[in-house]
Structures are given as structure tokens and as C-alpha cells.
């Protein structure tokens, strides 16, 4: 699952169409579009708006591991108009704070520093893209997610030869549309990473069946989760089931019985190799 943040509706429109996203009326604070795998929020211009929207979305579904991607247009002194560039360093111009998205996936495009400014600047910065959202987006998203799953992908919309006067809504739509393959490639990589992280963090499914049958305290629930995780590591083909423990009438006895069975399990690594 991936959360995408754009500042403007025109940056979002090509993505809404490409991924066939539907409006989600549940979110009233921001315009939100989604399908089963992609959730897109239009946050408005500026790092504060980006941070607010990111935190809002993260807090609305804290259970799952989402990847985060800020997509939008950005300026750069020398890069050609229409080039997609992934941020490898995000600098907040106002505070000087630097962040480094963790790049563990193949990058299908160039990568470069991205500086987030509070208001449009008359001059371009040397060797850095310039936008108005990424530092707020990154600062907020990194409260909820690991840096490998938070990225900012920008399409160069203006440079020292073609200034911002040439940018229109239709132009922004075209710039995003022209890079949809690159964007999709980044999204796919991030979704895979998010799925991997989700599977690592996953609670064993049987825990709910055990909790229905016996009453576990919060402490015991944690113990049960760890024991079931051990069970899956030792005998992945034979998941535990509550009916194997029906002779035990309280949670403490069940936990002791599970632990006893696990401790008696022989450990062989050569079986795992086959």
C-alpha cells in the first residue's frame, strides 16, 4: 500500500486517472482518492500543508505499513523541463535541516538534492531542485515510517531558461502524464518494500482464535504473540490451532503448554535448506 501526496489537483489528476482512484468522502479535511493499493491526498501548497496532510493520513490508519511518495513539479537551474528526479537529500531552506530518504530500490531516473522553500524564490539554487512541500512531508512521514519507504519524486517544470510563467494547469498535467511510467516504477518498488515490511510486522493470524477461546491479559497477549511467532518459525507448515489445547482451561496454562511444545521442537537448519 502506498500513500501519495500532491500539492495541487493538477498534479494529482493524471495519477487519479492512471490508477483509477475513487474519491473517498470519509476524509473531509483533505481531498482523498484511493483504490485497494494506492491512496492519494491533495494537500495544498506549502510544507505546513504537506506535513499536516501526511500526519492526518498516517494517523487515520496506523496499523499498516505504508510507503509514502510526494509527487509534484519542481524547479531546477539546469535540468531539462520534463525530467523526473528522485530526491536523495531534502533540505528545509528555512531551518537548514537535512533529511536523507533511504534508497534501497533501483532508481529509474536521476536523483538530486531537493530544497524546500517557504515562498517562491527569484533565483534558482545551484545543484538542487526547489519545491515547497517535501521537507514538511518528509518530517511528518518519518515519524511513522522507515526512511526507505519515504520518497519525493519531482518532475522539472521550470529552469533558468523556462521560468515559472510558462507553468499552467494543463502543462503540469502533461508533465506528470509524460512521466507516468517512471512514476509507476517507483510506486511499484515502494509497494513491494511496504509489503515486505508489513509481512515482517504481521501478527500471527491464529492469535485472534486463541483470544476468543481464552482471556489473556495485555501482557499475556504479547507473550502469546511471541510464542506464535516462534511456532511459525519452527514449523511453518503446521500452524497452531486452539483446538489442540482444549484440555487447558486458562490462559496461563495455554501459554505454558505452547511454550512446552515449542521447547520440545528439534531444531535443524539443514531441513530449511532443502
Amino acid at each position, binding site marked *: 500500500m502506498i500513500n501519495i501526496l500532491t500539492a495541487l489537483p493538477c498534479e494529482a489528476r493524471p495519477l487519479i486517472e492512471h490508477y483509477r482512484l475513487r474519491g473517498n468522502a470519509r476524509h473531509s479535511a483533505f481531498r482523498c482518492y484511493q483504490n485497494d493499493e494506492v491512496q492519494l491526498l491533495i494537500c495544498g501548497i506549502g510544507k505546513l500543508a504537506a506535513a499536516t496532510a501526511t500526519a492526518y493520513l498516517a494517523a487515520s490508519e496506523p496499523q499498516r505499513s505504508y510507503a509514502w511518495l510526494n509527487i509534484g513539479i519542481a524547479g531546477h537551474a539546469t535540468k531539462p523541463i520534463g525530467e523526473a528526479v528522485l530526491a536523495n537529500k531534502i533540505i528545509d531552506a528555512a531551518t537548514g535541516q*537535512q533529511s*536523507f530518504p533511504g*534508497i534501497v530500490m533501483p532508481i529509474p531516473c536521476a536523483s538530486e538534492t531537493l530544497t524546500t522553500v517557504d515562498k517562491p524564490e527569484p533565483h534558482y539554487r545551484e545543484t538542487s531542485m526547489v519545491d515547497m512541500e517535501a521537507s514538511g512531508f518528509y518530517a511528518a512521514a518519518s*515519524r511513522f515510517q*522507515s526512511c*526507505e519507504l519515504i520518497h519525493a519524486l519531482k518532475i522539472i517544470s521550470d529552469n533558468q531558461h523556462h521560468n515559472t510563467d510558462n507553468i499552467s494547469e494543463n502543462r503540469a498535467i502533461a508533465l506528470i502524464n509524460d512521466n507516468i511510467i517512471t512514476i509507476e516504477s517507483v510506486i511499484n518498488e515502494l509497494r513491494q518494500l511496504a509489503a515486505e515490511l508489513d509481512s515482517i510486522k504481521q501478527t500471527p493470524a491464529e492469535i485472534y482464535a486463541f483470544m476468543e477461546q481464552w482471556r489473556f491479559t495485555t501482557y499475556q497477549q504479547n507473550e502469546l504473540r511471541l510464542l506464535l511467532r516462534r511456532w511459525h*518459525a519452527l514449523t*511453518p507448515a503446521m500452524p497452531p490451532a486452539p483446538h489442540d489445547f482444549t484440555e487447558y482451561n486458562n490462559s496461563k496454562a495455554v501459554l505454558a503448554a505452547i511454550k512446552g511444545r515449542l521447547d520440545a521442537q528439534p*531444531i535443524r537448519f539443514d531441513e530449511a*535448506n532443502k
Partner: protein
Amino acid sequence: MHQVIYIEEAVADHPRTKSICARFPKATKVYCKHYGEIFNRKAQNFRLQKKQPALILAHKHTKHVLDAPDGYGVGGRRNYYFSHMLNCLYDCRYCFLQGMYRSANYVIFVNYEDFQQSIVATAQQHPNEELWFFSGYDCDSLAYEPVTEFTKEFLPTFRQLPNAHLELRTKSLQIRTLLKSEPIKNCVVAYSFTPDEISQALEHGVPAVEKRIEAMVKLQQHGWRLGLRFDPMIYQQGFEQIYQRLFEQIFSRLSTSGIHSVSLGTLRTPKAFHQNMVNLYPKEKLFAGRFEENCGMITYQKELEQQMTEFCHDQLMQYIPQSLFFACTPPE
């Protein structure tokens, strides 16, 4: 191949930075103020980074040489370690580095000269004592040799320090520099082993046991003194057979006369590191076994530890004299 190289601004023009970067012409260079901005930040995932570790080139300002932990040694009274590199190319599931560090990126401290000066100064402080310096604590000593040129740069330092011994601890086949160099008496190339079955399951990316033995044979033929490290010993049902086979496999190829030391160590991980490792790899069989906590360390059960140590020790005694044997277990 690295996609990204992070470079501390202060070492951007260091000749070693330039030569390392030249090996990765396609990598994107990203400049930072301090390597900790990338290496020590909170929100990062070691397991995901292990898929594609970045390289970080940095300057080590202080503590170039540190006291080795208790139980880390092969007979010397004064044991030190130094780390020109943090993290390992290999991905051994039992390795404490994955629990100790938040990042799987490789840090190379390019100011080798400061490490060398500290080593010389430490050796000169104790001119009448035998000192041991271990280089394979936070990384594999040889695995990244083509990039770091670590042995090429550090062997000359030890060549001129007769009271300082260097242990290169490794699982690597990168022995070209050693085979090109004149062996020095005060250097031991120590290879770590677990039996084939365990290595295949837990030592990801590590050369096969047989390949490591071949590398040792070449080094021995060239005159290098060798060490054998069975540390940690990993338990599986029927461990006796697989360890017996491993010892046979090794000692049928190596001459004991050129072996400097053999050490055995039990699996022991600080509790906090162990917890991090389990959280990274919850489906890993290694962590699902029976462990207990002893003085803040997660270990196998005492009886099992004893059983494994005694068995392996007895087996080793068939091949080596007691004088070459060292138990790497911290005092209780």
C-alpha cells in the same frame, strides 16, 4: 555495486575518498555533514537496507583503538580492536551487528593514518608486552579489500611493531593482497566457520566452507599464520555429527603446524540486540530456539552450551595441542 555514496563534506577531497569513489563511477554522490545523519537516525530498517546498502565515507575523530570486550582474545593479556569500517558485506543471521546498528549501510573511515598512529602509540605505551589488535569486530577484515585496501595499508604498520599482533578475522576469499605480501609473524589470518548445513542456512552471501578452506590452504602455503574461529557455535539437533565433519574437513586440508590458534565461542548476544534481531527476522528459526538470559546476554541454555563446548573441544583435541586452544567465553 552501490547506487548511492554518502560523503562527509570534510572528507570530500581526501585522496582515499576519491579513489574509493572512482571504483563506483555510476554511483550518485550525496554530501552530508556527519555520517551519523544517515547511519544513526532512528527511522530506518536494517533488513530493507541490507538489500542495497549504500556506502558512507567518513572521518573517525576519536577512539580509533578500543579495548576488546571480555572473552575476545587468543591468549593475549592486552586486547584491542579497531574498526576502519562499520558493517559487513555478508548477512549472517546470528551476527550482532544487525542488532547493534540501525543501518546496514557500510561506513568506511578514510583517515587510516589516525588509526595507524593510535595503534603505534598504544604499542609504544606497553613496549615490553604482547598486544593484540583485532580488526574484524565491526566488519569482516578482508571482504571489502578491493575497495578499502585495508590490509595493503595496515600490514606495514604492524610489520614495524614486533610487540603488536594483528588478527584479521574473516570469511572472505579476498586474499590477493596477502598472497602478494611477505607474511609477517605478528599477523594471524583467522577464518570463522560453522558447519556447511548451518552456513548455508544462516550465513547469507558467505563463501562456501570448502572455498574458505581452499583460501586458508593457499595462505598457509604462502607462510601466513592461521587462526580458526568456531565462534559462535550454532546448535542444531545432531550438532555432534556436523561439527565432527567440519573439523575433519578442515584438518584434513590444513597442516596444524602453521596454525596459530583455534577458538570456540558460544552464541551470546546482548539482550537489546537480540530483541532487535528477532524483530527484524521474526520468522528465523535460529531465534525460535530455547534461549535464556544470563547477565544481560541471551545465550543457549547452560547445559547445552556446556555440552557443545565440551564436545567440540574434545573433537578439536584430536587435531591440535591444548596450547593452541582458546575458549572465547566472557567470565561470569
